[in-house]
């Protein structure tokens, strides 16, 4: 157990005094719990100002003035001890079960946990360091109730998982929490923060905790606090890790055998004829003629050699037993490659961190440097980070303290081509996941050897042989080798503060923080690959982002009437300004085919040069009052008035605020006798927050949503032309969120069991909403941004931490948390309230959730024909067969659902929410004899996800040439009439439309991390002048168990469809597993 929670103040004001030396005493302070030395415990000679603190070995020595003999030894979290001084003392401190009052980081300061009326979860450095992760927020997975992490990508260069706190509060505005680093709002990427520098992370979940952040706190707040010096004795810490990254999610269960694949394709072609009324002979003839004809629904490639005059597939739909794999046409040799295996491989991860920290009389410093190199699971993919931090606090005068926190990170990363390019031939993940198992990746010479071109480059199959694939142009795996996408980023964050304490209790703070981010991105499209026609293309992009936050706070703390009433008042002003400047250029005809700079691009006709500037600003006035009586009854209230440049003058300012109360029930006299209960607190809060974070229809920030916007263009023949790109709305204003929280905190069995149970309800009103307008209105965006409607996220959170076993050598603890959230739309635009808002596979309606599936319903297979059947709503017909209309012009339905094999007749149905009922996590830590083992697991239950990759692999559309799931082998046929899978070619009209058949449970269990470490005994390492040495192995993202092999439900929190939401997983960077070993040394 580490006992270093030494506050700065203790260190600073324990001035070593004493004039007349009398008795010299020394000793060691040891914890009774585990026998480990207590570092930084204060030792004071009672009745004097003489004192010291224990060193890294728990040792102290001091001189006791004449006439004094009693020492008082104190340490946070331990029972204070008074005893008489003598030489070679061995002092045993026992932990103070009652006084274990944690201090947590809250908005604009810190607070005793007992006084906190809101809902927050804090995780410390220990939990963060148990993860080998590039992003600090990874540590929240499974550890923090109410928090959901959704990974968008396994790309080592991707920023961080998407975080949703207590559900999804907005339809079209941002749903991301506000990040606050060392007290200042932070909008840089999270991967620019080195997790090793983080001391704690607090998630503020309710309004009383976060309303004071006003406009930006509506989706919760994540406070990140970086490290400070801890010991008077300077500490040097070095940490190194080496490991391996590999693909986490396995491939879907696809047909890998080329023969089996041919058989299936043959059967599909046969079916297409036999069911079109042809004779069996005609159908066989058609399948024989077109199996390899890529222009008429066939596969295009022959990779088997069959004896002269024999067929590849027989009339029994089986591969000719005389066929041998591999085929040569005299010019080339054709044999399939496993694109998946060729694309994915393991890679190396290494990370080194060094830090120096310490506390002196007036100075507290922490400084660190770090290096991380994180490889990807495909080539030319990786992330490299150089980071440095310097945190310094200096007590200039008794009434003035200044501080600076400076951090710098340089990031070099490289990403393959993917992203939103679903279904694109240029997306290597899509290709690797979906390529049929008969296609070669490489071109081979007639003798079977791999072909190398005149430049010495490997020749990839890009339809450049005598066969042509029926789809997929070029070769994305080749392009990933030849094309380069280099991303260079610099992130500087600086915080400068001055704290003045002019009189007792009053603190005036001025903070300024700047965030300067520069990015330079170079993309090369190779003349030997995808940019042959342009003889190479270069794209260069550069942005400069500069954000300044000014913050002025006055805090006054006092108590009165015998210290029974405590009051704290905060008033402040905060201003945030953002400027983003972008510059980009593109050109072709590269002289040197490998250099992606514009001076090397000499084309004259396809030059693009673009630049633009965006500006954004918010400002706010804030105030907060905190009061308690006898530290038993707590009250607090906050208010904030915020303005945002995202809204038109007149709609710009909003007022937000909160109230909260807490009652320490255990401190009441009537509870005194309940010994097993150590703490019981009741708390309740209510507050209102705002959200101005409107995104455009591509999910990017829209800084001027209230103004209609235009894009001009020019040509020498047509002159200037001006086209609208965004339809604004002057009346647009704040979306507000009304959050209510009620719950209990408790601790029992001598604080060995801690827990929280809370109910919350968050209602979002005046939702920022893109009101769809009909296409016939001619509106370019198809919608108008407006404030309308409301929704509610409500639920229960439960968290339990316990120490199961504790002895001198063994400690076993565990944690468990659960969250249930229900999302419900409570109000919509009156014009759509009746019908709901339908868009694609989602319906928004009152009473439904934000993710309400709206799809066609599969009714199984017609056992006679093998065609897929779908439900439709029966309607009354006029004599001529047209639908009968009521007086309002609406179709009259009979209320019955019938089935049809004509897909276009099928209706969409409301299929309920896809959101999970419950999510949560559990973990455990065991420490024994220097060993420690920890594991953290997260899970989700009761939701659904659209498995569009499975849909693609089942080929309901005419996706000839792409991979087939093994389930397709079980498709309906005359000898398999009981099958629930339509016959091959029997369901082609479904195409890319979403059908409930592919909606699957999103339950998962994910082993987020397991770490095993060993800390060497002090006596073994102290001769090496080390104060600690720990070695460990760690596994991050070890396994995900889901309903179907290949499915990663963590990828999505949207209804999804064939090409969106979950569909992205086939085209996105698959999640990675990381296994590392490392060591941590401190001097």
């Amino acid at each position, binding site marked *: 157990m580490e006992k270093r929670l030494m506050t700065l103040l203790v260190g600073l004001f324990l001035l070593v005094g004493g004039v007349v030396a009398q008795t010299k005493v020394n000793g060691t302070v040891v914890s009774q719990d585990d026998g480990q030395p207590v570092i930084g415990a204060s030792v004071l000679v009672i009745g004097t100002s003489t004192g010291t603190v224990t060193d890294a070995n728990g040792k102290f020595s001091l001189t006791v003035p004449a006439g004094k003999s009693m020492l008082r030894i104190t340490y946070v979290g331990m029972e204070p001890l008074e005893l008489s001084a003598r030489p070679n003392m061995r002092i045993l401190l026992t932990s103070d079960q009652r006084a274990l009052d944690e201090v947590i980081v809250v908005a604009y300061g810190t607070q005793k946990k007992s006084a906190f009326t809101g809902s927050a979860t804090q995780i410390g450095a220990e939990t963060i360091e148990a993860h080998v992760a590039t992003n600090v927020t990874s540590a929240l997975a499974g550890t923090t109730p109410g928090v959901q992490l959704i990974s968008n990508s396994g790309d080592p260069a991707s920023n961080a998982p998407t975080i949703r706190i207590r559900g999804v509060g907005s339809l079209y505005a941002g749903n991301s929490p506000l990040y606050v680093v060392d007290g200042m709002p932070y909008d840089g990427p999270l991967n620019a923060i080195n997790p090793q520098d983080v001391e704690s992370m607090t998630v503020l979940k309710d309004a009383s905790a976060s309303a004071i952040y006003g406009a930006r706190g509506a989706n919760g707040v994540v406070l990140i606090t970086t490290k400070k010096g801890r010991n008077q004795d300077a500490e040097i810490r070095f940490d190194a890790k080496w490991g391996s990254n590999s693909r986490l999610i396995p491939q879907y269960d696809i047909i890998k055998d080329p023969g089996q694949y041919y058989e299936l394709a043959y059967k599909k072609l046969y079916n297409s004829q036999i069911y079109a009324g042809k004779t069996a002979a005609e159908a066989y003839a058609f399948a024989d003629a077109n199996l390899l004809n890529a222009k008429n629904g066939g596969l295009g490639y022959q990779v088997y050699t069959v004896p002269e005059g024999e067929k590849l597939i027989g009339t029994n739909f089986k591969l000719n037993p005389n066929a041998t794999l591999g085929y040569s046409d005299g010019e080339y040799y054709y044999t399939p490659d496993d694109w998946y295996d060729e694309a994915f491989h393991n890679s190396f991860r290494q990370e080194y961190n060094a830090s120096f920290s310490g506390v002196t009389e007036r100075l507290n410093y922490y400084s660190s440097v770090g290096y991380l190199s994180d490889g990807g699971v495909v080539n030319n993919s990786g992330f490299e980070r150089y980071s440095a931090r310097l945190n310094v606090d200096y007590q200039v005068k008794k009434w003035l303290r200044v501080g600076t926190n400076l951090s710098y990170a340089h990031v070099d990363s490289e990403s393959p081509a993917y992203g*939103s390019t679903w279904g694109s031939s240029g997306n290597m993940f899509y290709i690797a996941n979906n390529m049929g198992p008969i296609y070669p990746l490489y071109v081979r010479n007639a003798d079977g050897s791999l072909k190398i071109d005149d430049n010495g480059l490997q020749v990839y199959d890009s339809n450049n042989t005598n066969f042509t694939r029926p789809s997929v142009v070029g070769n994305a795996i080749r392009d990933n080798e030849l094309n380069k996408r280099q991303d260079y980023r610099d992130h500087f964050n600086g915080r400068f503060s001055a704290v003045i304490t002019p009189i007792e209790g009053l603190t005036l703070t001025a903070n300024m923080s700047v965030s300067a981010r520069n990015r330079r991105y170079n993309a090369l499209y190779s003349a030997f690959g995808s940019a042959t026609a342009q003889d190479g293309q270069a794209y260069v992009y550069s942005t400069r982002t500069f954000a300044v936050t000014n913050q002025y706070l006055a805090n006054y703390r006092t108590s009165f009437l015998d210290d029974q009433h405590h009051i704290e008042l905060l008033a402040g002003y905060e201003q945030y300004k953002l400027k983003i400047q972008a510059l980009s250029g593109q050109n072709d005809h590269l002289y040197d085919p490998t250099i992606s700079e514009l001076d090397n691009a000499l084309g004259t006709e396809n030059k693009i040069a673009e630049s633009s500037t965006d*500006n954004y600003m918010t400002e706010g006035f804030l105030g907060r009052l905190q009061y308690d009586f006898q530290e038993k009854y707590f009250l607090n209230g906050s208010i904030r008035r915020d*303005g945002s440049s995202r809204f038109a003058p007149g709609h710009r300012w909003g007022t937000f605020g909160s109230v909260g109360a807490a009652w320490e029930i255990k401190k009441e006299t009537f509870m005194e006798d309940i010994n097993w209960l150590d703490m019981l607190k009741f708390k309740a809060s209510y507050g209102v927050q705002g959200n101005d974070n409107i995104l455009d229809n591509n999910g990017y920030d829209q800084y001027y949503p209230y103004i209609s916007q235009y894009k001009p263009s020019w040509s020498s*023949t047509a*002159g200037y032309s001006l086209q609208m790109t965004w339809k604004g709305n002057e009346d647009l204003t704040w979306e507000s969120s009304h959050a209510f929280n009620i719950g209990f905190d408790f601790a029992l069995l001598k604080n060995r069991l801690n827990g929280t149970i809370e109910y919350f309800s968050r209602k979002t009103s005046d939702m920022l909403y893109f009101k*769809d307008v009909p296409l016939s209105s001619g509106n370019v965006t198809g919608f108008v941004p407006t404030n309308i409607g409301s929704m509610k996220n409500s639920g229960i959170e439960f968290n339990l931490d316990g120490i199961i076993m504790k002895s001198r050598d063994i400690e076993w603890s565990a944690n468990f948390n659960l969250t249930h959230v229900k999302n419900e739309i409570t109000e919509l635009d009156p014009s759509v309230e009746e019908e709901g808002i339908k868009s694609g596979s989602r319906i928004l309606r009152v009473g439904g959730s934000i993710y309400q599936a709206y799809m066609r319903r599969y009714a199984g297979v017609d056992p006679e024909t093998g065609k897929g059947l779908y439900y439709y709503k029966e309607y009354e017909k006029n004599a001529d067969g047209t639908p009968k209309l009521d007086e309002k012009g609406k179709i009259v339905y009979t209320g019955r659902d019938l089935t049809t094999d004509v897909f276009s007749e099928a209706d969409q149905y409301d299929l309920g929410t896809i959101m999970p009922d419950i999510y949560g996590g559990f973990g455990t830590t065991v420490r024994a004899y220097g060993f420690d083992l920890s594991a953290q697991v997260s899970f989700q239950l009761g939701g659904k996800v659209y498995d569009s990759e499975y849909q693609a692999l089942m080929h309901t559309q005419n996706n000839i040439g792409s991979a087939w799931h093994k389930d397709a082998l079980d498709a309906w046929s005359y000898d398999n009439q009981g099958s629930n899978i339509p016959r091959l070619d029997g369901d082609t009209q479904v195409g890319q439309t979403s059908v409930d058949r592919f909606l699957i449970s999103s339950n998962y269990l994910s082993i987020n991390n397991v770490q095993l470490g060993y800390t060497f005994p002090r006596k073994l390492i102290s001769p090496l002048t080390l104060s600690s040495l720990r070695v460990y192995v760690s596994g991050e993202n070890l396994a995900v168990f889901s309903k179907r092999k290949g499915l990663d439900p963590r990828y999505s929190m949207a209804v999804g469809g064939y090409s969106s939401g979950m569909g992205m997983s086939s085209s996105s960077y698959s999640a990675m597993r990381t296994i590392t070993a490392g060591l941590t040394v401190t001097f």
Partner: protein
Amino acid sequence: MKFYKISFLALAGLMTVASCNDIDEMEPASGALTEDQVQQSKELNPARSEASFSAMFNIMGLPNGVFNRSTPRADDFGFIMSAISSDAEGPDYIYDDSGYNWFSTCGEYSSRNANYANPYIRYATPYNQIKMANDLIKENKEATDSVGKNMCAQAHAIRAFDYLALVQYFQFNYQIAKDKPGVPIVTEETPDEQLTNNPRASVEEVFKLIISDLDYAIENLDNNRTNKTRVNQQVAYGLRARANLIMGKWQEALNDAEKAMAGYTPATITEPAFCELSEPNWIWGIEITQNMVLVSGYPTCSSWLSSFSGDGYAAATASYAMINTMLWNKIPATDVRKGWWVDENLYSPLLENVSWDGASGVDLAKLQIDDVKEPFNPYSNVKFGMKDGIGSENNINDFPLMRVEEMILVKAECQARLGQDGAARTTLESFVKTYRDPEYSSTAGGRSLTDEIWYQRRVELWGEGFAMSDIMRLQKPVVRFHDDTCNQPAAFRFNIPADDAWLLMRFCDSETNTNAGIIDNTGSKQPEQDQYPNLRDGVTD
């Protein structure tokens, strides 16, 4: 003392920051222009006022013009895409059944799927343009200056062009379906509230608007214009000729067609062409500029329609637009248009006059360049050239919207419908014999006169977007095959009877979900392979 000084300083600092409050000054610079910035530009340079007018024409063939998503779609290019879609739904225009064919949705007729992009783009393009026209009409209605009046008149003509395209997608021929629902009408006077409950106007009402818009345009336009992308009086006459032809007003259509064609001469065919606005037979066209294709050159006619782009879909993936051999076989060898498509040996005389990488003739057809060009398929078209030269990667081909040849054929058809068979044959023969086939005789094909004229339209206007509107207008079946020898891929090989309900487009769900007034078309179902093998159309029999 010190305390007060410090507090004062802090307070003063705070006030300073708060007072340089520029929350009202947050504007973009470039990237997007705000309404204020647009207004300011107009004040500084009044010539900028014409930019919105110019945009109305720009959108007609704009790559990534209407789908408005983060990823460009290779089939989002305005009316040019609509033209290709219409032809690909027809009998004569073929793409392979392969994963490269973005128009397979038209080949197989899944284009009636309400959430597909293809019908979305075909529907959104005209309505986006109608909105621009309505805004211009509203702004210039009362204009007294010639510039404003002219812009207003052109906007009327454009609106008529749009409704003409739309109404034929959603309802049968005017002459049989006058009272049936057409498409919702939006004009400059339609109040915003009505848009969300705007029922389909009857076909008759839509045509009433079309004719009144064209009447207005003809009255207020003359024959001056800045270039052939713009509408002048002749273009308006041409549009009215089309409308009158659909409505069966033969004499009016004939008169209008004659006015439209005055001064233009048919093209002389020597090499791949139909890609430049300046061609003398073009009355009206869409111009594609270098700027438009900078972001992506794939959503263009160069990429899909021409077989000669150095960076296009057709050439790179062998997705060449081909002619149905049933029609091609009917073209006499003496007709120069037979050479618009290579034969089964990949030969066309038109290829003798051009070269790509030094190859001409059949060598050009067989030329293979990795990632750039695949060999032609038999019957691949070589009608459409490249504005920037054969093999150029600049996909800036212009697209014809109205050619003099069409107007000649309208004239001939009207004459035939009016019973003036002799005049009709003279009109037809004098055009074809002079410019296409010196051996031509209008009776040699053995077709009825009106079928002969339709045959001429099918050959002459192949690839230009007339296939389906002609079929709907003439109430003909879609006949893609007679027997197994036709070159349609199996999945697209079927016939559809005349006036089949599946020929009518369905409204996209983006419209039905937001416009409560829409009752969609129903009936029939997606065609199946080899259906109706015995249908004949009078042209390819």
